[in-house]
C-alpha cells in the first residue's frame, strides 16, 4: 500500500469534516477533519456508538466533537476531551500540492458492543400517529 489521494484541499474547509474514499480494493471510507492547525484522517464513525462523523462531527479550533453524546478529541494531540472514553484511530495524512493524501495499509475499524442496544420494542418503530398529542 502507499499514499493515495482522497480529495482536494478545497473540498474540506477549515472547521469541517468530510467522508472520503481511498480507492483501494472496494474502497475504504475515511473521514478527514480540517482543524485549526491541519488535517486528520480517521475512520468515518465515532468510536462510541458508530455515529457517522460527517453528519454528527463538529470541528471547532483543534477539537472534534461528536454531537450525539459529546465525545470529543483534540485533533492535534489526539488527547481525549469531554465525555470521550476511547481514542481515535488515525491514518497518516499529508498535503501534496492541492491534494490530500492518506497512507492506507488496512481499513481501521472500531469494535462495537451490540448488547448495548436500547429497548427498541418499547421506544421505537412508531407509526407517526401522535398528531393528536400536540
Amino acid at each position, binding site marked *: 500500500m502507499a499514499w493515495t489521494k482522497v480529495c482536494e484541499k478545497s473540498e474540506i474547509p477549515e472547521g469541517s469534516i468530510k467522508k472520503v474514499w481511498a480507492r483501494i480494493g472496494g474502497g475504504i471510507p475515511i473521514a478527514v477533519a480540517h482543524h485549526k492547525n491541519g488535517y486528520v484522517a480517521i475512520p468515518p*464513525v465515532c468510536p462510541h456508538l458508530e455515529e457517522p462523523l460527517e453528519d454528527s462531527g463538529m470541528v471547532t479550533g483543534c477539537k472534534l466533537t461528536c*454531537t450525539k453524546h459529546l465525545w470529543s478529541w483534540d485533533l492535534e494531540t489526539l488527547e481525549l476531551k469531554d465525555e470521550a472514553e476511547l481514542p481515535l484511530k488515525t491514518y497518516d495524512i499529508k498535503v501534496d500540492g492541492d491534494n490530500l493524501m492518506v497512507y492506507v495499509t488496512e481499513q481501521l475499524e472500531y469494535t462495537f458492543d451490540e448488547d448495548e442496544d436500547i*429497548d427498541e420494542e418499547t421506544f421505537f418503530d412508531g407509526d407517526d400517529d401522535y398528531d393528536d398529542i400536540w
Partner: protein
Amino acid sequence: MAPRNHKNWLKTPKVEYISSECYNNYSIFEQEIEHIFSKVWVPMCHISEMSNDGDFRSTQIANKNVVAVNRGGDVHVFLCPSIDRPAGNGLSTDGLHELHSEVKHGGMVWTTLDLNPSLSVEEWTCGAFDCIADAIDTEEMEVFHYHKAVIDTNYKLWHDTNSEFYHDFMHYFNRVSGFNDEYFARKNIPFDNGHVNVSSFTVNYEEYEGFEDRGELSFPNLPPNQWYMVDLFPGYNFNLRGNAYRSDIVTPLGPNRVLIEFRGYGLKKDTAEERATRVKAHNSIWGPFGRNLHEDLIGVAGQGTTMREGTETRNILHGRHENSTIHDEVGMRHYYEAWGKFLGVNPMNPLALLEDNVQAAE
C-alpha cells in the same frame, strides 16, 4: 436506558417526541419572538429594584428596549428606543409609548408588548403561583442577589432543565439531600397556557456536609425545608427552597444563545443576621459558585452543542408516563403542546407547517 446509536436516532419513536429542529432553526426562533415573546406577560424585574421615586430598570423583550419606572410609588413601563443603562434614576419618559404593566406574584414587575392583552397577569398565570402565594405575598420581598449568564444554548433547553428531572441525577447535592420516596413522588401539575408546578417535598439539607437545616427561617406559611417550583411558559422559573427564593428570566438572543437573569430574594423585614443566613443558603446552591447552578449551566451548554444548527435532526423523547410523578414527562408534553399552539406548528415536525404559516402571514 442505554444511549442511542445512529440506527436508533433515525427511527420513529413510538412514544411522544419532539424534533430537535425546535431548538436550532432560525425561522422558528423568529416566529417565537413574534408570536410568543411579543405576546406574553414577561416578569421583567422586581419592584424592590426600583423602590425610590424616579428609579428605573430596563431590559429587552423580543428585541425591543423596555424600561420600568417608579412614578410616585406606581410602576409604569415604556418602550424606550435609546436606553443604554440597566438601571438608574431620573429617566425622562416624555414621548415614550407606555405598555401595560402589573406588579404581581411576590412583587414582580410584569409587562407585555401586546398593546391589547386579552388576559391580566392573574388570568395568564391561571393558578400556577397558588402553591407559593402565601409564602411570597405575605411579606414584602427584596432582591439581594442578581447575576446573569449568556449561554450557548436554546432558551427552551434552560426551561426544560428547570422542568424535567432526569437531570437531577447530575446533582450530587440533590442525590445526598433529597433522594427518597417523597422526592420521587412529587407531582408535575399542568396549568393552562403551558405553565407547570412541581409539588413540594422535604429536603434533608443536613445530609450534605457543611449544610444546615433550613426550617427556622422558612418563608412565611411555608412548612420547614419545603421546595416548590413554578415553571412559567415560555421561560420563567420561580424556585422556593425553604428560606431562599430564586427567579430565572430568559431573554432569547438567537436559536442557540440565551441570556438568563438570576435573582435571589429575601424578606424586606429580615434582620442582618437573617439576611446573611438567606444569602448563604441561596448562594450555596444557586450562586455562580454554588453547588447546583453551574452544573445545570454546563448541562444545557452541552445540550446546546448537541443540537446546534447544522447538526443532524433527531427526535427528543417525551414519552415517560409515571402517574405525573417527578420523572413523568407530562410537564414537557404540556409545555410543547402550548408552544406548538402559539406557533401553529407540530413540535414533532415544526418546519412542515412553519413555511405555510409564514407565507400566510405575508
